[in-house]
């Protein structure tokens, strides 16, 4: 029983982090029609920046604050000065541009930090085990779940209780129409892009103590994040949330019960869902 609880908590923690990454990806895709291949590279970049901030200041908290903001800044620069420039040339050009940025970040972090795994320790106060339901569980993972829930609630609040949120939801459905109603859609795009990369950045720093910082981070998270947005339905936050948690649990329990199949379990899950509902669980059918 204890093992199930621990595995379940592991899955939940990973699912939450996965959602932090995937939500930015799916919002940008739904709203701007851009599949940002560099999104998970921003996630990785933030982990490296976090590592650097800890190396310089010794403070994990400072890293968690600063690295995601720097990452969001980089994301905004990319949107403003690169993505916008190629928009006129259509979706293929945009896709290729984001791939280019992905390569630059990938090779950039290798050039600066090398290819070895870099450790990032959680703060001392969280490096303890706590007792939940008789299970000794790392406090840091509990913190991770709490952090993700807090950001999730903040995002829900903005999306469903503010005018900006209403505009974003409308723009996911029809950005051109929002523009024609007198709303500065380019500014909304930039804001959402920044917020999305910020969340990916938070996820990057937050998961670094568990996964360590390495150039493989982006590929590892990338595959899962793409599965989440495809299965959840493009542009659907609710779908992304549900599938991210499912993915987290599926990998955690897969490792426990079907270790030799764990790596393909997510793909099987994706194949089954798409066979039944090609537009994803919460996707709008293309008419």
């Amino acid at each position: 029983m204890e093992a199930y609880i621990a595995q379940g908590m592991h899955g939940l923690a990973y699912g939450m982090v996965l959602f932090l990454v995937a939500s930015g990806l799916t919002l940008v895709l739904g709203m701007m029609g851009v599949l940002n291949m560099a999104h998970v590279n921003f996630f990785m970049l933030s982990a490296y920046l976090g590592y650097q901030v800890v190396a310089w200041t010794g403070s994990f908290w400072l890293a968690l604050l600063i690295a995601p903001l720097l990452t969001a800044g980089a994301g905004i620069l990319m949107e403003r000065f690169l993505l916008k420039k190629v928009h006129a040339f259509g979706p293929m050009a945009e896709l290729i541009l984001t791939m280019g940025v992905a390569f630059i970040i990938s090779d950039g972090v290798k050039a600066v930090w090398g290819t070895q795994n870099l450790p990032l320790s959680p703060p001392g106060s969280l490096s303890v085990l706590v007792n939940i339901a008789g299970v000794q569980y790392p406090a840091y993972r509990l913190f991770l779940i709490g952090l993700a829930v807090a950001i999730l609630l903040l995002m829900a609040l903005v999306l469903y209780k503010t005018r900006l949120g209403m505009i974003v939801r409308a723009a996911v459905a029809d950005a051109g129409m929002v523009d024609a109603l007198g709303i500065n859609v380019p500014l909304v795009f930039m804001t959402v892009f920044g917020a999305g990369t910020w969340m990916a950045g938070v996820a990057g720093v937050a998961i670094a103590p568990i996964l360590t910082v390495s150039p493989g981070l982006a590929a590892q998270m990338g595959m899962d994040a793409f599965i989440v947005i495809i299965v959840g339905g493009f542009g659907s936050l609710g779908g992304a949330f549900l599938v991210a948690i499912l993915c987290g649990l599926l990998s955690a329990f897969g490792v426990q019960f079907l270790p030799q199949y764990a790596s393909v379990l997510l793909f099987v899950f994706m194949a089954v869902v798409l066979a039944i509902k090609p537009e994803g669980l919460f996707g709008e059918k293309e008419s």
Partner: protein
Amino acid sequence: MLLEVSELNTYYGQSRALQNINFHVDEGEVVALLGRNGMGKSTTLKSIMGLLKPHSGQIRFNGRDIMGLNPYKVARAGIGYVPEERRIFPNLTVLDNLKMGIKGGKIDKSNPNAWTIERIFEHFPFMKERTHQKGGHLSGGEQQMLTIGRTLMGNPRLLMVDEPTEGLSPIMVKEVRNVLEQISKAGIAILLVEHNYKMAISIAHRVYLMGKAHIGYSGTAAELEADAETRKKYLEV
């Protein structure tokens, strides 16, 4: 002149969809832009709105050059656009759809003529009962009314409406016609693209007829009514 379009050319790739288009709309006027399918009516409205970038020409609104501006700037200059596919936000409630039309998010209290949600409800009573329903759950006619109401919330001086009666029942066609007439009486100029000739001619002051990519005829509604040959040339299928 409220809106003045001169020598407007718009391309889709290599193909020229608008060829030296010239027309104007005066303050408070209802102007119909008619013609068969594929002549370039929607392209004309989209070019004015900034949704398509024209290749050359001039678009002046209220004395200001608005050509090449982003759609949101054109809207802020005072042009409201009701597109042909209706394009309400299906995932938003009726009330939120209307709120999306309010420029800057706040109703301008200093303007006594500013549209309010209450005023919209007076014109479209059905919306009052359905404020919290999703826009996607409305019927086609109701969605059309919602698009018009949403655009009015932005207090346009000129309303451009593209095929508002397409796919609607005869009763709804009449309703849409009456709503447009009321809007016109409120002093708002209307540029109407419509395939229902009878409906259009019953509220239009002046008419432009489009042939392929160009405007081939301009006259008053009465003149066109008296000119069966022109109607046959540009409208009959």
